[in-house]
């Protein structure tokens, strides 16, 4: 089935579509609470957050991230220096230990979507795919949350 056609069905199917995309593409990497921080329509960047759980008996390594709405997507780490300054650095790999968890959350490790082709609005879902060592991918929908939903 062509991808475009499949996406149209998702748009119409609503609930069914959500269920399909809620299933991790790779069973051992389980996603929960995946969301994007809403930003102004002229914003060049967006941040994404998600809880990741490795449901397998071997370590999983995320080697890259991609989404259709951004020209470039990266994993970022955040460090705080003694003087209180914060620095974001590109995280080239993220390993989730066997049966372990990892979290991408505000002010800490997070996804950075750069060179946005369009800025999704409140409530919209955007598919984001995590590339794993071994040339496989796991995708999940990220929902755009209103500021009041994450900064209350």
């Amino acid at each position, binding site marked *: 089935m062509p991808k475009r056609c499949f996406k149209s069905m998702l748009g119409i199917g609503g609930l069914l579509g959500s269920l399909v995309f809620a299933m991790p593409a790779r069973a051992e990497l389980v996603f929960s609470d995946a969301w994007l921080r809403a930003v*102004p329509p002229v914003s060049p960047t967006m941040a994404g957050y998600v809880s990741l759980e490795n449901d397998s008996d071997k370590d999983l390594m995320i080697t890259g991230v991609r989404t259709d709405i951004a020209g470039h997507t990266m994993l970022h780490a955040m460090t705080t220096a003694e003087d209180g300054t*914060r620095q974001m650095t590109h995280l080239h790999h993220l390993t989730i230990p066997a049966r372990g968890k990892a979290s991408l959350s505000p002010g800490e490790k997070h996804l950075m979507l*750069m060179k946005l082709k369009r800025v999704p609005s409140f409530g919209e879902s955007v598919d984001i795919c995590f590339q794993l060592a071994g040339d496989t991918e796991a995708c999940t929908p990220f929902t755009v949350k209103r500021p009041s939903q994450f900064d209350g």
Partner: protein
Amino acid sequence: MRKLPYVLPVLLALLVAGCGKQESDLPINNRLGGEFTLTDHNGEPFTQAQLKGKVSILFFGYTHCPDICPAVLARVAQVYRQLDEAGEAERLQPVFITFDPERDTAEHLKEYLPWFKANVIGLTGSLDEIRQVAKQYGVVFIKDQQEQDYLFTHSDYIYLLDDQGRVRKLYPADFTIDEVVADAKTLL
């Protein structure tokens, strides 16, 4: 009874003072802040003196920052909305100073900031002007060139200024909204 004419005005003055607004307990920070001139989001010169008469929430950032800066703006917007609902936002002025003038032009700030619906004044300027203001507020920012873009390592304090433009309190980026609302109310 002969002392009554002298005592009465004093008692009256005390009574009036007691009925008036209580002075804020927030200490005045004389080491931070001061005069500055930058360019606002309309492309007009903007001086620190223009903030006098209003209580300001001042903070630094840049619009290409995906994580902390939009979160701070959203939180400041919530402070603004809470005070607006209480009918007290008229004298509150959020101020966003970019340290990325190369990309955060007046035009871009004018498009970016209204989305937060908090009447935020965006300020930009030459790099030297911004460096000077940042120094006055003890703000550090360092440009980090990444593979495809550049970011900033930066401090992210939020400053509450009284109606004389004096710094009265600093907050971390993840400040408690109710705390800032309560503090601002003591200055409004």
